[in-house]
C-alpha cells in the first residue's frame, strides 16, 4: 500500500483511490471510536412499539383505566354488596314491601326502624326497582352480562372468522372462490332481522336441562351466541383473508423465501405479526358492537331471560316509570354509553398504535 499505483486513475471511476488515504486511516479504532458503535437504545419489537404508542394516547389510556375500573367493580361489587340481583329485599326475614322504587341512598320505613334499633343496613346506592330489588347490584350484574356477551361474541367471531379466512386465503384458487361466494351471501343477509328471527325461533325450540350453566344463561343468550357464530364472522373472515392474500404477495416474503426461510418461519415471523394487529383491532371493535346488539335485543324483549338483568333490559324496564323515576333509566343508559365509548376509543387507539394504515 505504500507504493504509488502505477496506472493513472480514470477520473470517472468510482473505484476508491487509495492514494488519498494516509496511513492513519487504517489504524485500529480507538476505544472512544469503538464505543460509538455501541447500541444505546434497546431495539424494540413490534408489540413493544405498539404498546408504547398506545400508552402515549391519552384517550386510549383513559379508556383502559375506565374499563379496568368497571371490571373491578363488576368482579368485586357482588362480594361487597350483601344483596343479590334477583333477591326481593327483606328485613330480618320479613318482606320489605315499602322498599319499592326507593331513590338512591334512601331507606324504606322498615329499614329505618331497623337502623334506629341498632342494625346496620347496606345503602341502596342506586335505590331500588319496582319489585323491591336493589338497583345497584342489578346494574352491576347487567354490566357483567353485557361485558360477558361482548367478549364471548368477539371470541366466537374471532375463532370462526380466523379459521375460515385463513383457510380461504392460504388455499386460494377454486376453494377460495367458493368460500368467498358463501361469505358474500351471508354478508348480504340483513343481520339484525336474521338475529331477531333466529332468536324468536330458537327460544321456542331450544330446551336446556334446568340447573346447567346454559339454562341459567337462558335460551335467548345462547341463541344470541349462535347467531353471532352463524352471521357475524363473515366480516372477520373477509378481513383476514384479504390480509393473508396481500401479505403473501409482499416482497419481504419473497426475500425471506429466496434466502431459504422455511414456510413455518415465514408464517410465524412475517405473516402472523402483520395480521395480528388487524385481528386485535377488529376484535376490540367487535366487543362494543356485540354489546350494542345485545342491548337492542333486550330492549325489544328477546334478550336475556327475566330475572337476569342486562343493561338493555334494565333500560327497557325503566321506561315504565319514566315520569316518576327517571334515574332508573339514567344509570343503565349512561353505563352502556360509557362502556361502548371507552371500548370504541380503545379500539381506535389500538388501531392508531398498531396499524396506522388501516382505516375503517
Amino acid at each position, binding site marked *: 500500500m505504500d507504493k504509488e499505483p502505477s496506472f493513472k486513475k480514470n477520473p470517472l471511476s468510482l473505484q476508491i483511490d487509495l492514494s488519498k488515504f494516509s496511513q492513519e486511516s487504517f489504524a485500529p479504532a480507538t476505544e472512544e471510536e469503538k464505543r460509538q458503535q455501541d447500541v444505546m437504545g434497546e431495539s424494540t419489537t413490534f408489540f413493544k412499539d405498539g404498546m408504547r404508542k398506545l400508552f402515549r394516547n391519552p384517550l386510549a389510556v383513559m379508556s383502559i383505566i375506565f374499563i379496568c375500573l368497571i371490571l373491578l367493580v363488576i368482579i368485586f361489587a357482588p362480594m361487597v354488596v350483601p344483596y343479590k340481583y334477583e333477591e326481593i329485599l327483606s328485613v330480618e326475614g320479613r318482606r320489605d314491601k315499602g322498599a319499592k322504587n326507593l331513590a338512591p341512598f334512601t331507606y324504606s320505613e322498615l329499614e329505618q326502624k331497623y337502623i334506629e334499633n341498632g342494625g346496620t343496613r347496606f345503602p341502596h346506592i342506586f335505590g331500588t326497582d319496582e319489585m323491591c330489588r336493589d338497583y345497584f347490584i342489578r346494574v352491576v350484574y347487567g354490566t357483567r352480562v353485557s361485558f360477558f356477551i361482548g367478549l364471548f361474541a368477539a371470541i366466537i367471531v374471532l375463532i370462526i372468522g380466523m379459521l375460515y379466512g385463513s383457510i380461504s386465503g392460504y388455499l386460494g384458487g377454486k376453494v377460495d372462490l367458493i368460500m368467498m361466494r358463501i361469505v358474500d351471501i351471508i354478508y348480504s343477509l340483513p343481520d339484525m332481522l336474521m338475529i331477531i*328471527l333466529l332468536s324468536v325461533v330458537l327460544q321456542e325450540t331450544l330446551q336446556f336441562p334446568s340447573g346447567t350453566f346454559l339454562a341459567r344463561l337462558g335460551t335467548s343468550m345462547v341463541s344470541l351466541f349462535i347467531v353471532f357464530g352463524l352471521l357475524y364472522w363473515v366480516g372477520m373472515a373477509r378481513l383476514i383473508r384479504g390480509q393473508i392474500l396481500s401479505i403473501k404477495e409482499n416482497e419481504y416474503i419473497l426475500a425471506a423465501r429466496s434466502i431459504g426461510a422455511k414456510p413455518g418461519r415465514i408464517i410465524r415471523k412475517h405473516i402472523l405479526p402483520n395480521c395480528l394487529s388487524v385481528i386485535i383491532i377488529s376484535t376490540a371493535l367487535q366487543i362494543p358492537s356485540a354489546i350494542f346488539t345485545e342491548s337492542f335485543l333486550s*330492549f325489544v324483549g328477546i334478550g336475556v331471560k327475566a330475572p337476569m338483568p342486562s343493561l338493555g333490559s334494565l333500560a327497557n324496564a325503566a321506561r315504565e316509570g319514566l315520569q316518576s323515576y327517571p334515574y332508573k333509566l339514567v344509570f343503565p343508559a349512561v353505563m352502556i354509553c360509557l362502556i361502548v365509548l371507552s371500548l370504541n376509543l380503545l379500539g381506535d387507539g389500538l388501531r392508531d398504535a398498531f396499524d396506522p394504515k388501516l382505516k375503517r
Partner: protein
Amino acid sequence: MIKYVIKRLFLAVLTVFIICLITFFLMHAIPGGPFNKEKALSEATIAALNARYNLDKPLWQQFILYMDNFLHGYLGVSLKNGREISAIIGESFPISARLGLLAMAVALLLGTVFGSTAALMRNKLPDRLIVFFSTLFTAVPSFILATLLLLLFCIKFPIIQVWSANKINYLLPVIALAAYPTAYITRLSKTSMLDALSQDYIRTARAKGVSKFLMIFKHALRNSLIPVITYAGPQIAYIITGSMVIETIFTIGGLGSKFVTAITNRDYTMIMATTIFLATLVVIANLVCDLLYKLVDPRIQFD
C-alpha cells in the same frame, strides 16, 4: 359493466331466495301449529283448517306455494288479528319509510356538512367540538337517545308534544334515529375530505388560481362523498332496525312497531312476512347503492 350488473342482480335474487328459505324453514321448526290455541279444536276442524291453508301438504310443496304467493304479493294472514299482512304493510310502511328517509336525509346532509367543516378547520375549535360530539354519539344506542329525548322534552320540559291523535310529530324520532348515522358520516366524510384535500389535483387547482369555494365544492367535496355513498347503502338496514324501537318508544304506528308487537305476540306469519319484506328492501337498497357507487366513481374496477 353489464356483466357486473348481471352478476350483482343474480346475487341479490339468490340472497332474497335464501332469506325466504331460511325464514320459511325456521318458522316451521317452531313446535305447535298455528291453530294450537287455548281452546282445543276438534280433530276434524284442525284437519279442515290444515287443508284450507295447505298445511297438510309436504313441506317443500308448502314452500313452493308460499313463494308463489310471495311473488304475487300475497303474504298471508296475521295469526293474531286475522288481517291480511300485505294490507297491514301497505298502511304502516309509508309511515316508517317517511321516518327513515327523513332521518337518512338529515344524517347525510348534516354528516357531510359537519365532516367537511371539521376537515377544513382542522385542529381549530369547531373541529374539536365536532370530533367530540361525533365520537360521543357513535356510542349512544338509538333507543337510549330516544328515551332520553322523551324524558327531557316531553316529561321534564314539555315543549314538544309527541302523542297526538291524528298528526305524528316527526321531530324527536328523526333526531333519535339520525344521531348515530350523522356521527358516523361526520367521521367518515372528515377523513375522506382530508384525504381529498391532500391530493395533487387540489394543489393544481389552487396553483392555477381556482377560488376556494370552487376548489372545495367542485374538486374536494365531490371526491370525498364516495365513501359516504358506500356507507349509505348498508345504513338502510340500520335505519329499519333502529326505527323499530324508535317507533315503539314514540308510539308511532309504523311497520317497525308492528314488527316488535308481532315479536312479543309471537305472531309467526306476521314476523315471517315482515322479515322477508324488510330483508328484500335491504338487499335492493344495497344493490342500488353498489351500482350507483360504481357509476359515481369510474376508477373502480369491475371484477
